[in-house]
Every structure is written in structure tokens, then in C-alpha cells.
């Protein structure tokens, strides 16, 4: 991992799922940006751990990289799908606070009927960008403002950021 990746809030994100219909199997749908050693085989058990149920966080490692995963349901006519969004977190990222942001983002996507595999894959780059810049994540007509969630909860996403702000 490069210095820049280490200091970002999240350096990579992945969308995975287990669909509810007959004959489906666990799958990694997208890794962004692509990482050479992140193949379906190497990360499936980390992004969809055994026993995973919706609306829970899971943390695992891939070498020195820490992966934070959040699971949720994707509504379908029949049985719902199990979905997950995972992030490789930077060394200064405050995971408990990142959890608050991810949970709020997923909830807002759900409330806006935008929580589906296609939308998640399409907007993954925007989600990473919004988290790293702590700015707005625009998904179709929905605007999720990372900065204002941080402000409302009186939290920071990275260690030392308050100190840094005070210095300049």
C-alpha cells in the first residue's frame, strides 16, 4: 500500500452479495479500484463471512490491510438478497466513526429505493471519493453529505484531523 493509500479514509471498496433466488451463490461483484490480490477467491470469506446476517459490521484483515464490511438486505419480490459493502480502511481512520457514516449512507440509499447491486456498483467510485474528501456523495437524485453527518454527530473520520485543523 502506498503512503497516499495509507493516509486516505478508505483506499478500496467492494460490493458483494448472496442473492435470494433459487440456485444463487456468494459473489464479489465489484472491487474499486481493482487490487491485484483481491480476487473473489481471496476476499469472499472476508466480505461475506460465514454466519453473516444483515445490518451488521464485520472486520477482517488481508495481510496488513484492514477490511471493514457492512451487510444489509436488498429488497426483492421473493426472498430478499444479502448484500455487503466492504472498505479497506486507512491507518488513521477511526473505524467506529466510519461505521456511523456507512450505516447512515446505506440507510439513506434504502429509504430512497437506491439500495440495489447495480446502483452500488455504479456509484462505488463516488462513494470512495465522498468518504475521502468528506464531501457530498451524489447518487442519482440523492445527496448524502458526509461532512454534515460528521458535524451532526460531532465526530471525525481520521485521527489527528482536529489537531491538524487547529494548526492551520
Amino acid at each position, binding site marked *: 500500500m502506498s503512503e497516499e493509500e495509507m493516509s486516505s479514509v478508505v483506499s478500496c471498496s467492494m460490493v458483494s452479495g*448472496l442473492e435470494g433466488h*433459487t440456485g*444463487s451463490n*456468494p459473489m464479489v461483484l465489484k472491487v474499486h479500484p481493482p487490487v491485484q490480490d483481491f480476487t473473489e477467491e481471496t476476499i469472499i470469506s472476508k466480505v461475506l463471512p*460465514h*454466519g453473516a*446476517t*444483515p445490518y451488521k459490521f464485520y472486520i477482517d484483515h488481508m495481510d496488513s490491510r484492514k477490511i471493514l464490511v457492512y451487510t444489509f438486505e436488498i429488497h426483492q419480490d421473493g*426472498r430478499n438478497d444479502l448484500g455487503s459493502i466492504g472498505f479497506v480502511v486507512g491507518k488513521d481512520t477511526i473505524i467506529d466513526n466510519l461505521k456511523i457514516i456507512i450505516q447512515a449512507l446505506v440507510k439513506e440509499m434504502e429509504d430512497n429505493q437506491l439500495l440495489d447491486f447495480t446502483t452500488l456498483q455504479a456509484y462505488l467510485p463516488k462513494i470512495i471519493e465522498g468518504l475521502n474528501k468528506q464531501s457530498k456523495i451524489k447518487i442519482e437524485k440523492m445527496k448524502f453529505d458526509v461532512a454534515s453527518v460528521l458535524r451532526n454527530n460531532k465526530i471525525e473520520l481520521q485521527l489527528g484531523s482536529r489537531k491538524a485543523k487547529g494548526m492551520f
Partner: protein
Amino acid sequence: MGLFSFLKRSTKNKALFTGLDHSGKSTIISFLQEGRFVEHVPTMGKDLTEMEVQGVRINFFDMGGQSHFRQMWLGEMDDTKCVVYVIDKSDTARFKEAKQELGKILPILKKKQIKLLIFANKHDLAPEVDLGQIITEFELANISNFEIVEVSAKTGYGMTDAFVKFYSILTGQIIRKSVVASAISIYNEGGVPLTVQSGGDDEEFNKKILEGGFLSAITAFAKTKIKNSSVKFESQDDGTYIILRSDNLIGALLWKEDLQIPINVSEEALKELMDHLETLQVHKHEEEISHLVQQYCTNLM
């Protein structure tokens, strides 16, 4: 509780639920635990839960049924006392695949002398597929040491009988199904009768109780309009009517002394039935109520 006490937690009564994806394993387990239908997402690998019945702890190992996970079933057999194999009775197109997967575990069950209980699930969707047909298509006649039950984890059909069988296979102990109601009747919010079920299949009796005690008790109660409230009316001729209003329906249960169970058990059972009917949102399709209540009442009468 000391450190590592979780390691000591007994898995003495371990039941392994297997069967194709979508057959209804998770739905069956939650119905056995909660007495009502709950929708699940597909099981990711395995899900462990436990339940205590009459002081006996049961460990449910709910295995993912998707092809990716089937290999794991075999790895879990070691300390298993009973393997439940769930078949979706309505999915005849997958009988061949279901038979093949069952075939893979049979030699291990035989070797380790693990008992097999087959749940022919989704009876509500395919009542016409009978156990005889399943026994033939799955060539079960060649297997010794198995039992088969017909259930629906959606309507609750046959769940108590299935549990009684499951419990005795797993623990070697007998529990008896108790009859908790002489009759049950469901009304809409306004007190209009939708269905009545009685212990006997006697239509005359149904008619009589509907027109008689039930209806007058309900008419009095329907006026109260307080949701999730209940009341008891004693009738000298019939017994005691327990009446309960849920969010969208009114349910009445006739309790008699000769049922030989405490009245609060019947009251609890009526509450569970009403929760179940509300979960299924049956008030939105009243034409199905009769069928659904009939299926659930297999557990109560």
C-alpha cells in the same frame, strides 16, 4: 460465567438442518423457535441458534443450502444427533437435485448412526404432492432409520407434530402435543366472522358455536375497539371464551376444563396465532384466512 465458558457450552443435542437452498430450513427453525413465520435472507454458510425446551437445550445448525456450501454439511456431522433434510415439496423440478444431495449424506448417516428426519416443507403450496410420491421419487423405501413429516413453515401446518417427532429423535424424550382449544374463530375488525375451526370436523358444531356463544361474546367485545386487548367470557354451557383483538383482526378461542391445560397457555396460543396472522397480513386477503387458520390450527387442536 468464566472465561472460555463458550467452549464448554454443550452441543449435546445438535441438530443439523440440511437441504437445497430455498427449501425453507431457516424459516422452519425460526417457526419452531418463535411460533410464527419470519422471512430470512439466504444463509451465508451456517447460522447457529439454540433453544431450551423443558430444560433441554437444542442446538440448531442451520446450514446454507447453496451449492457453494453443501460440502460443509459433511464437516458438521461429527457430534450431530439428528440430521434434518428439508425438501421443498412444491419445487418438483428440483427433486432430482435434492435426491442427489441427500444421497451424498446418507452413507455418513449410516456409518455414524445419525438419525434422519425429512421435512417435506411448503405443504401450503403443494398439498397435492403427497408423502407417498416423495417416498417413491426419492427412493426412500430403501433407507432404514428415517422419518418424514409434512409441514409448512409459512402457514404453520403440521409444525407441532413435526416438533414432537424432532424432539423425541434428538433427545430420546417424549413430549406430548397438547390440545389448547376446543374451537377457534377469527373475525374482522368490525366483528364479522371470517372463519371458525373446531377440534372435530363437525360442520354443524361449527355453525352452532359461531351463531351461539362466540358471536354474542364478540359482538360485545367488538364495540370496545381497544387494540391488543383481551377479555374472557364465561359461558355455562360451552366453557370460557378468550377474545383478543390484534391490529386488524379479532380472534376468539374456546377453552374448556376438560382440555386439562391452564387457561393462560391457551391465551398465549391465541396471541401467537394472532401475531402469525398479522405477520402474514391476512386481513388484506380475507379469502385466504380460512385456509391459513385451518393450517395453523393443526398445532392447537
